[in-house]
């Protein structure tokens, strides 16, 4: 065996290295060592991001094609580790609190394992490896959701999460077993793509596709596989919620694209076009309709993220390099916008324990900077120009309409109408903070330094990503290098 193949797995190895380092420090160092645990992890992830970005990818496909490390997957991993960095910074204060005294190492280790899993999900080109990635990204999350062990809601959320996760894995595996049967005994993406191109359309493949979509839909919380989302988001510690809402989703969306476009692209119009169509419309609409009536900020963000997932998956419908690029850009913008919002929510929850939308009334009087950041995050999520969210929406819409299909124009139209609905509830938060005449319920406080850094980075991202950043071009080049004929339509 050629061990140099492990060189291609640099991102995973780095994450594994960080994991081991955290483990060792956590086990053997005293109180002083434990103090630097979070900052150390944050800094290391940041360095890892840079390393993944600049070290050239060696070897396209390794281990017989099970694993691929190209520029596109590396770019995606960078986006995820930036998100990871922001989440760890935001979690710092909560991790340092007394409740967490003996378990802060565990928190970081579990988090790192899920990141490792996500990296595998992105790079896997064989369903077995993919399942391993998926599970190691899912199962530790159940433990993380239950991390507030003195809180009843946290347990309930964890149980709901694990039950649904198990169920969805079962469905997914069942689907994959049908795929295995269809492809004549191979789980390699390439083989499956080949057999899908050559083979006859059959009921077997149909069910398989539906089940695979349902299984991935769970991770992405697409409707109707999203029902766990609100309860879990509400019960989980806020930092974990933030993590769930952006990173899990981002990795799953990328995998969704690769699986459906690379493996099943040939049967797009035969088999899964209308499935995805229905799921996207349902996701965007139902997410919006529920988000409208939420009073709890975490539940609110849960439904908002359901709806955002619908927009992310729109990129799959474009099915070409443009779609993948705009999807990755959307995810990146979504990472900064959503984490910006979660930073505000979690710092307010940590300091005052307040989590209801009415608690935000008159926030600008006591905490003008937090209100400002939250407003920008809401504007970006709603897609108001000139913030990043506007550009990411525009790009994803144009990538979908560039295929020229009438049905997809209608899909974009539905998405646009839903943007208007989403404006309503995002602005509800803004209204509560700035316009509501009630006396402010949250007293004035100072956020911790880590939180400030994380929030400032998010705000910078929201303001500059769309207007003056080369990020879209970087991503586009990365995608183009990985898929040289990326502009050609894969889907027929």
């Amino acid at each position, binding site marked *: 065996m050629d061990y140099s193949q492990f060189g291609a797995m640099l991102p995973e190895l780095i994450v594994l290295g960080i994991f081991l380092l955290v483990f060792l420090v956590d086990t053997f160092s005293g109180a002083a060592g434990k103090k630097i645990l979070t900052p150390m992890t944050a800094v290391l992830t940041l360095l890892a991001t840079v390393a993944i970005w600049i070290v050239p990818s060696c070897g396209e496909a390794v281990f017989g094609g099970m694993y691929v490390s190209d520029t596109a997957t590396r770019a995606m991993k960078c986006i995820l580790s930036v998100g990871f960095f922001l989440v760890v910074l935001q979690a710092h204060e909560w991790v340092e609190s007394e409740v967490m005294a003996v378990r802060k190492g565990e928190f970081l280790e579990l988090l790192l394992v899920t990141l490792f899993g996500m990296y595998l999900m992105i790079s896997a080109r064989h369903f077995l490896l993919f399942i391993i990635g998926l599970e190691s990204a899912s199962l530790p999350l159940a433990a993380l959701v239950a991390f507030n062990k003195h809180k009843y809601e946290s347990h309930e959320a964890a149980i*709901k999460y694990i*039950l649904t996760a198990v169920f969805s894995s079962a469905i997914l595996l069942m689907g994959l077993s049908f795929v295995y049967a269809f492809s004549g005994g191979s789980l390699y993406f390439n083989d499956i793509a080949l057999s899908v191109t050559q083979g006859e359309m059959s009921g077997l493949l149909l069910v398989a*596709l539906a089940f695979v979509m349902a299984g991935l839909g769970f991770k992405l919380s697409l409707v109707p596989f999203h*029902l766990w989302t609100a309860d879990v988001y509400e019960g989980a510690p806020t930092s974990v919620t933030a993590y769930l809402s952006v990173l899990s989703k981002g990795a799953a969306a990328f995998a969704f694209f690769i699986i459906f476009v690379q493996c099943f692209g040939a049967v797009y119009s035969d088999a899964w076009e209308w499935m995805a169509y229905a799921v996207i419309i349902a996701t965007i609409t*139902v997410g919006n309709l529920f988000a409208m009536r939420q009073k709890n900020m975490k539940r609110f963000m849960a439904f908002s993220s359901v709806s955002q997932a619908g927009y992310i998956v729109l990129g799959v419908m474009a099915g070409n390099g443009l779609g993948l690029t705009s999807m990755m850009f959307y995810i990146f913008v979504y990472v900064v916008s959503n984490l910006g919002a979660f930073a505000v929510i979690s710092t307010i929850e940590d300091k005052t324990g307040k989590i209801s939308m009415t608690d935000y009334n008159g926030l600008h009087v006591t905490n003008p900077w937090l209100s400002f950041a939250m407003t920008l995050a809401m504007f970006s999520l709603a897609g108001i120009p000139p913030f990043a969210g506007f550009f990411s929406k525009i790009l994803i819409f144009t990538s979908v309409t560039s295929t020229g299909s009438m049905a997809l124009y209608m899909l974009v139209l539905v998405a646009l109408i839903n943007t208007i609905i989403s404006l309503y509830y995002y602005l509800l938060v803004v209204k509560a903070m700035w316009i509501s005449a009630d006396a402010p319920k949250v007293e004035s406080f100072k956020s911790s330094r880590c939180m400030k850094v994380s929030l400032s980075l998010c705000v910078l991202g929201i303001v500059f990503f769309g207007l003056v950043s080369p990020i879209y071009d970087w991503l586009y080049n990365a995608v183009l290098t990985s898929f040289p004929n990326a502009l050609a339509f894969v889907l027929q």
Partner: protein
Amino acid sequence: MDITLPILILALPIAMFLILGIGGVKMSRKVAGVLGILGMGTTATLAYIVAFTYFFSGNPDFIIDGVRLQYQVFDVTWLAFTQKLIVNIGFLLDPISAMMLVVITTISFLVHLYSWGYMEHEPGFQRYYAFLSLFSFSMLGLVVATNIFQMYIFWELVGVSSYLLIGFFYKLPSAVSASKKAFIVTRFADLGFLIGILILSYYTDTFNFINLTSNPEAVLTSTGGATFMGASVLTWAMVLIFTGGMGKSAMMPLHIWLPDAMEGPTPVSALIHAATMVVAGVYLVARMFPVYCVVDAAMTFICVVGAITAFYAAVVACAQIDIKRVLAFSTISQIAFMMVSLGVAYDRPIEGVHYAGLGYMAGMFHLFTHAMFKALLFLGAGALIHAVHSNNYTAMGGLRKYMPITHWTFLIGCLAIAGIWPFSGFFSKDEMLAAMFARHWFWGAWMTMVAGLTAFYMFRLYYLIFWWEENPHYKEHKPHDAPWQMSLPLIFLALVSCVAGFIPFGELVTWDGVPYHIHIELPVAATSLSVAVIAILLATKMYRVKNDLPTKVKNFWPTLWEAAHRRFYWDEIYQFVVHKIIFGIICRSIAWFDRHVIDATMDGMAKVTNVASNSIKGMQSGNVQAYVIWFFLGAVALAGITWLCLV
């Protein structure tokens, strides 16, 4: 030609605007003032060098065989809409742009200097200088535009700076409404301008002036004879473009903003509303002159509008009390004079006329001399207002003893505008009248009458300010001449007004670059001079010492005087049209539609969304078994959807 100087000419004022605009609050008045004056002084020097190089260097870029050429110093692509429609930004040197560079920077520099004294005690002094710089930048960009779209961009920028400066005293409601009025009226006119530009460029596929004007026949044929409502589309385009000029140059019926614009600081009135911005319309017509020449209908339109406006404004100026209003109407009248002069010009020889482009040359000549003496008059008015703290001549009278410098310079200005030899106005006006008589005796006679009226109202103003009867208030508050910063520009401009007539203007500025030797048309000169002298004598009789003759004249036909004093009710007509017809009938019905149809539809959609949201809330039961059932049903439904689509 090296592009450094032209770029600096544009870059210095905008840099000054940014420096003073951003850093102004941190500077003392002195620093800001000196910076502004130095910046403008440097720009003026550079502009003089460029203009001098253009006219006198003999460089083959600029002149070949005695014919002056149009030269684009640079012209870079700025916005490419289509393969053909490309907006460039550039710097065009030709006789009129070089002349305008001199006029703008000279007056602007003098106004900068003058304002140092005039605005000394006003709050927002630094902001004022920033706006002046912005205006200078915009105006310079306008005159050197290589294409009509660049001109349009800077056209709007001068509009904005004019708006900012008229409303400079933003705590005065009258200044605020005047600035809004100026902006809205000119914007309406500019809408026509833009449409005209789009029509013209749609057919000709170019914005560039040289492309448009070098071959006007091609422009004429490019439309392929298309017509709209009885007139050819080219006529429409050129008339619409002229509409923009009508707005900026305050031609009837879009003149209403200019008198109100006098609410701005007086130096601003001198710079923007007398010497530079308001002649932009004339400049525009001169720029597009060859194209206008092939569209006879548009030329006739220009002549008619100009002739009516000139007469109207001259009549109104006879019945104003506010000295700045008199000057404002005088400006309108004089600009209209230039318009008529351009309107009667030809680009091809006509029988019996020795030089067909005379009207063009004369119009540009008058633009130059008028800029100088009108700025002088406005700055003189500023000195007067500075001394007596009122805009009305009723608060003045007998000031010649108290303010000798202002008196003499103002007198020179009046003589120049009245067209008395050897002051500059005589020469330019004589050429214009000669061109008009050459075209048709009617234009000549009509405009000679306007010239007589001009002499009359200017000397009426002069006598009422400096003679008539000494105002009793002077005992408490003795008026005196202004400080040196203000007197110096007055003296300089007075000198220019004395000698500018002797500039061999025809050698420098003609429409086709071929020099023309000016000679005085004796019959025309004699007529206009005698008309002017008679008018001045009449004014002397009526206003030199206090008497009841003016009251008698006024009572002879009081309704006429009242109507002229109220500017023939144009503002009232606009008020009626806007408030009663547009707001009352059109807007109200649109508002009804908006409220009861559009809003109601939106409310209905919101209601539907709300009901939908309410009806599906049962899905989120909190029961994990139910979630899993939904999950499974969803997966089955997905397969079902595809199944249905396939079958």
